[in-house]
């Protein structure tokens, strides 16, 4: 049975590669989207099936089925009602949800660690996925509000310094924890990291100009892919690793291509400054 599921995962992984390939050619883009969607349905179905055969408690099963049902219907409604001009921010909103999912995985897993202690490298993978997911969640939300015109640009220097401080704090905590220098439990570390990362996502995107938002969304999308890959490493699940890394790598390249199409360098976009000599690039 396990071999059957692994084979299904392998097929689904292939559809992701094929889907991305087709999506990047104008004639086949539609079939690429459908192909990847079929692969995703297959992968989720197989995971649910394998959960069922592993004696999944009835309550858990009902929650999963309910959440998947509601999510599919709401996702369909949200995407069919959006105006054509509103699509980029909707993508950002969906990306925020993926980031939120990654963050929740870290939090739940962190709470369970009290019962069974995990090896250090797994704890670090979890913490990394949580940090990236949380930053991607709030960053994408800010991008969404900016594109929807509900939030104005704010180029206050203080925001940029606070963003850098929180990033340094996050990295410092992770490094200190990995050397065993932190006198705190993993659960508390997870909560502190989640808070700092949520804050960092806001501070990081807020000063960036509204016109650069598509690039930022693409970058955050790539980051969600990385968070997915880290979670996949925790569960040793190859399709999560592969899917996450495809998105991470393709998203990063796409970010660079979008910058190039706008004649801006990624660093300038991230610094939130408008290039003064626009022809210079």
């Amino acid at each position, binding site marked *: 049975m396990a071999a059957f599921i692994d084979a299904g995962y392998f097929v689904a992984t292939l559809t992701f590669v094929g*889907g*991305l390939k087709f*999506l*990047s050619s*104008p004639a086949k*883009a539609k079939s*690429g*989207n459908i192909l*990847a*969607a079929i692969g995703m349905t297959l*992968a*989720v179905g197989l995971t*649910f099936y394998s*959960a069922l055969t592993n004696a999944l*408690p009835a309550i*858990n099963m009902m929650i*999963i089925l309910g*959440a998947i049902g*509601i*999510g*599919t219907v709401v*996702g*369909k409604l949200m*995407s069919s009602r*959006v105006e*054509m001009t509103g*699509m980029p921010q*909707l*993508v950002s909103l*969906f990306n925020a*949800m*993926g980031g939120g*999912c990654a963050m*929740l995985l870290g*939090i*739940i*897993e962190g*709470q369970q660690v009290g019962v069974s202690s995990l090896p250090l490298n797994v704890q670090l993978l979890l913490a990394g996925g949580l940090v990236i997911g949380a930053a991607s969640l709030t960053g994408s939300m800010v991008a969404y509000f900016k594109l929807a015109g509900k939030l104005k640009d704010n180029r206050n220097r203080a925001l940029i310094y606070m963003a850098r401080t929180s990033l340094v704090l996050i990295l410092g905590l992770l490094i200190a924890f990995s050397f065993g220098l932190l006198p705190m439990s993993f659960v508390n570390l997870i909560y502190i990291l989640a808070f700092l990362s949520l804050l960092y996502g806001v501070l990081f995107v807020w000063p960036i100009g509204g016109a650069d938002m*598509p690039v930022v969304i*693409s970058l955050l*999308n790539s980051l969600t*892919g990385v968070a*997915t890959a880290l*979670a996949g*490493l925790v569960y040793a*699940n190859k399709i*999560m690793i592969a*899917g*996450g*890394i*495809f*998105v*991470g790598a*393709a*998203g990063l*390249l*796409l970010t660079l*291509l*979008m910058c190039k*199409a706008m004649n801006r360098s990624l660093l300038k976009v991230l610094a939130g400054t408008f290039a003064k000599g626009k022809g210079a690039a």
Partner: protein
Amino acid sequence: MEFINQNLDTFYFIALCLFLGIEVIANVPAILHTPLMSGANAISGVILIGAIIIMLKVEPTDYLSLTLGGLAVLLGTLNIAGGFFVTGRMLAMFSTKKK
């Protein structure tokens, strides 16, 4: 050193996926940037699998984790379903424009 030895397969896997992910979209035309971003976003929703796996481990009496896990499944599903539907709509827009 032992760590590297034990995980060598994973390192190969990650490196190859990395190059594949870059190569496969290298020739994308600018008009497809947004649909491709949206499609890739939907694929990153594969994290839903992780949310389902974690629901396996949660005790049926641990209501906090059950709620958070249910929320994680919901968010992951929204990411996937919304992502693919939005991509479909964007692409449908392209073909009507051409005809």
